[in-house]
Each structure stands twice: as C-alpha cells, then as structure tokens.
C-alpha cells in the first residue's frame, strides 16, 4: 500500500448490471441535450494552431517576386535530415541565387533549423499540416512550389518574449 493504490472490494456474489448501464446511458443522454459541443467539424472547422507550429516549408520572396534565397548553403549544412538540395549559381545580373533548391518534405523532420539559420529570412517552416500527394515524388518541393506556398509561416519565437522567458 505504499503508494496509495486503491483496492476495490471485489463483489463476492453476482451483482446486477442494470444500475451501471443506466448511469452510463444517463451520461449519454445528457450530452445529447447539452448544447456544449467538443467535436470539431473538421475539415469545415479547424483548431487554431500555435504560432510556433513547424510544418511544410515556404520560401519568401522579395518585392519583385523573386525568392529571397542567396544560396549561401547554410540550410543544407545545418539540416539534420539532409533533405535540402541546393546548387548555387548566378542570375542574369550576376547575383548569387539557387539554381536548384529542393526540399524533400518526406525526409524533413520539421526541426526548423533551416529557418533559424537562414541569414536572409528566406526559407521558413509553415503553419500548415495538411499534406497529401499522389506520389512520393510530389513531396520533393522545388523552388517554384516553395515560393508559391501561401500559408502563414512559423514564428520561431514570440516577438514579445524573444528569449522565451
């Protein structure tokens, strides 16, 4: 009895189930007429998700609609799942930009390091969780797809409390 385990007295003879069943039904009927509902009518209704939710990625763009990425190579380096493929190159103006930027969302573990390490605030993990595709290849998001994403992005920290105090 050291840690307070409650031992019920076992019934020594047969008991009726009727009373227990009735009390159970009473609870069920109470919920039928109770206006308080806990069920969310997903997908019409959705729970709000945390501003720090880390879901599939989104690449932010500058005013001209080009991705902000400068192909510095930090995200493939920090990525613990090794899911980012980046080949740097030069655009017409001689600026450094990613020739190939692909994230394998299947491989991604959504740690958010890529967003944290990005010096240009280009790659972000998104507040988004509904992913489905018809093929595995569909989960390799290329630059075009990443920039076309519209979902809100993760706030890695609370702007009012950046140090998490």
């Amino acid at each position, binding site marked *: 009895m050291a840690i307070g385990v409650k031992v019920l007295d076992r019934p020594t003879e047969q008991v009726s189930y009727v009373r227990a069943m009735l009390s159970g039904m009473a609870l069920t009927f109470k919920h039928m007429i109770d206006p308080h509902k806990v069920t969310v009518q997903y997908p019409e209704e959705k729970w709000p998700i945390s501003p720090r939710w880390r879901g599939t990625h989104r690449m932010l763009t500058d005013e001209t609609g080009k991705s902000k990425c*400068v*192909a*510095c*190579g*930090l995200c493939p*380096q920090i990525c613990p799942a090794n899911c980012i493929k980046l080949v*740097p*190159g*030069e655009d017409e103006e001689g*600026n*450094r930009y990613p020739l190939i930027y692909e994230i394998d969302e299947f491989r991604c573990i959504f740690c958010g390091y890529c967003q944290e390490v990005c*010096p*240009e605030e280009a790659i972000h993990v998104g507040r988004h969780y509904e992913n489905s595709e018809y093929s595995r290849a569909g989960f390799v998001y290329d630059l075009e797809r990443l920039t076309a994403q519209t979902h809100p992005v993760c706030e890695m920290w609370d702007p009012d409390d950046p140090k998490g105090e």
Partner: protein
Amino acid sequence: MGETQMVTLTIEGRKVSVASGTSILEAAKAAGVLVPHYCYHPGLPVAGVCRMCLVEVEKAPKLAPACASAVAEGQVVHVHSEKALEARKGVLEFLLINHPLDCPICDQAGECELQDYTYREGRSEGRLQEPKRFNPMEDFGGDVLYVTNRCILCTRCVRFMDDVAGEPVLNVSERGDRAIIGKFEGADLTHAWAGNVIDLCPVGALVSKDFLNKARAWELDRTPSICPNCTQGCNSIVETRDNFVVRTRARPNDEVNKYYMCDHGRLNYRWMNEQNRLEAPLVRQGERLVAADWSTAVDHAAKLLNGKRAVVLASPMLSNESLWMLSKLIRKTGGLGLFTVETGPEAPLLGVPDLALRAERAANVRGAEMFGFERSSSPLDGIQSGDVLVIADVGGMPLEIDPSALARASASIVIGTTLPEDARSATVVLPVTNVTEEEGTFTNVHGRVQRYLQARAAPGMARPAWWALGDLLEAMGDAAGYFLASEVFTALAGASPEFAGMSYESLGLKGARLQGSRQPAETTG
C-alpha cells in the same frame, strides 16, 4: 654554412628553441600556437600592416607585432593574455568598420580568416552606427575579381606581384579610409601565376571568377594531389563536390612549389570531370565493339599479344606504377615504348628558384623516360606489320593516328580513359582511371617522386592502368598482379635502382628525390 645560433623562449608556457632571427610568429607556429595574422605570409616579405598579430612580450613596454619581431633569448610571450586579446579585438573591430557582412554570398565564407578570427576573438556585436564605405567591384583581368568592399588592405597580393611574380601590377591606391588595392593604368593581372593572389587573400576580396558562386568551402572534399598539367609537379589539393572536381589549389611544399601554383594548372581541371569516359571493357565482335567483363577482355588482349611484338604508345600522364607495368609488358613481348607530349610556352615564377610552368604539359615525362619510353614525334612509324599497337592514353598526349600505321598493326589495344576517334578500330578497349580517380606517383622534372591520392570515384568499371596491366601480364603467364598501388610501387622500387628504398610511407605527401638526382637549385646553377 656556419652554425645557426639557437634561441630558447617561452610562448604560452611552452619552451621552444628556434634559430635566431626567427619571428615570434614562426616560433609560435613551431610551438603549436597560432598567432592570428592577415598581412604575414611565410612566402612573402614582412609588411606588418594589419596589426593582427600583436602579442604581449614580458618586460616589453608595448605589445609587439609577432610577424615583425625577432625572438630573443629567454623571452616570455603571451599570445592569449588579456592585453593581447583586447588589442586584437580592437583591430578586428576596426577591420569590420567597412567590411560588409555579406558572408552568405561571399565565396570565401568558411575559409575566411576574418570570419575565423572574429568568431574566435572579435566582438559579438558591432557598435558602428555610420554607413559602410562602398566601392564597386573591379575585374582585375585573368581569373581574378576584386571585391573592393571586402578588402582589408593586408597587401599580400601587392607583395606577391612585386616580389614573387616580379611583375608589379598592383598597388595601394588612395589614402586613409579610402585606400583600395589598385591596378596600374593599362596593366592587367594576366601574369601566368597571378591566380595565387586568390589563395593569398585572407578574405573574400580577391576571388576566382572560375569558382565564383560554384560551391561553399565547407561542402568540398579535399584530397592531396599532384598537378598533372606540366612536368613541374606542383603539389596541389583537388577539391571535389559530389564527385566533381570544382577547384584545384596549391598545397605547400618547400621543395617544389612553395605555396604557389600557376593559373594553367589551377584552371585546367575540367578534363578530370569528363563525361565521355569509357565505362566498361570493350571487345570487338565483327564491326562492333561490345561491352564485356574484365576477365574476358583481358584474356582477349592476352591472346592478341601472344607471340607478337607490342608497340606501346604511352601517355606521359600515366603514373610511375602504370608505366612500370607497361615497361614489363614491353620487355615480355620484346616490344617498343614510345610517348609524345603536348607542349606550350614555359612560364617561370621569378621569386621561387626552379619553379615554372614547364613547356612539357604532362606530369610524368621524366618517369616515362626512366622506364625506357622514347620520345617520338611520329610514334607510329615504328610499327612493323604484325605488331600489336597498345595505346595507353590518359591525356596529355597529342594523338593523331595514321590509318595506314594502324592497318600495318595486326591488332590494337586501347588502355584509356576515353576512346579516341582515330582508334575506333581497336580490337580490345580497357577503361582506366585518370589521375583524380586513382592513387599513384609521378616523377617530376627534377626527379622528385611524389604521391597523389584518389579524389573521386572512378566511372563504371574503370580500373587503374597498373591493375589492368597486372591482370593482362598474369593472363600472359606472368606472376599474379597487384592489389594495391603501394604494392606495385614497392615492387617497382625493388626492381629499379633509382627508386631504391622508396615506399609510399617514406614518400609521405611531400615526395622524395630519386637516387642520384640533383638538387633542383643545382640544375640551373
């Protein structure tokens, strides 16, 4: 030479003895302590302009620049004392006043000394409110691009061009905070060795146009190698990214190339990534060459050579090991070994004795000569009817095959990286690796035997030439072939008196001179 006087001093609590006249910085290096520095480079005259190497010397009134202060008996030097760290922190803060924080797009990031030392010793935040200086980029000509904003004016490049290359093209223009590295009017950085300023630049101010935006420093796999582009045999580092060579750089070796490498060697690496490579052994069946496995192809080649004289046309880019195996094949068949070599203009580096981009543009001409191959401008004239022509081609060999010479030969065997258009009529084709895909040694123009290591994976079924030749000799009745390049080299060293006593261990990564070969300095007198 007189006795050098030794001086004993203490650096960071470690006692070290160095020759008198050595700088504190070099003495610290000997003691295993790195003194941060920008303007100092062991291959260049001391300038003492960056003030980054300030160290505290006990009983001295001020901090001393380690690069420009000679050691003294009984000196006690503190590199990481509070005073020295405080001074260097200040130097770094001044350097960062105008240095842009564009590391994400800077090619030097990851191998930048400003980045490293700031991370180690600098302030974590800048205090400067004023805008940074801006100057446009300038194309210096050659392979060099000058990103003015990133320059910290260490003047290594200026001193290299003045004192080592002997072509003073660069200078420090303007004054004070407007100072930049300038180029003399009308002059360009087109010196054959000018590319070294890119390696010398401690920051990303001088960058290679060839390497620009291609890869990040930390993604590269680095392999010690030997530049195969001329007979000088400069020690190099082959840097690969995803099995592709993206850059080659000089590897310091005081006996050969000091810290330098010429632009020809530096930029002539694309052939190493060639995509039109042979990937499987081919054996002729009627009109067509059909892919076969190694043993079939080798047996077929052995049958062709049986009782015939082999005329071997060897590329002087083959390793000592492969050339030695070829010479065994020649001896066995009573044949003939020939080579041709590409040539170009010679370009010496004045500041280093006996260092030049040599006229013969292949790594192992000396080795080929040593193993009995004859230089020939028309190598195929010696073919008599009934001979078997063996073409061992891994590059560096101008190859024009006269169809009539080929018709005289009873058969031809190609042992090569690619199948030359002229040699399509070959009977057996054996795919072999190039210099970046195998381990081996070259003998340079001064008779220095130097090792190179494997930097990338070989395509398909390609094997080192010595391996293929070992199997071929075995199929012709010789002893079994070798499994490792080091075994071939040991056997070679046992058989050739010049190589006596050498092994891969004794060569290390700096190489060793052949028995009886002269000091490089003596050859030119």
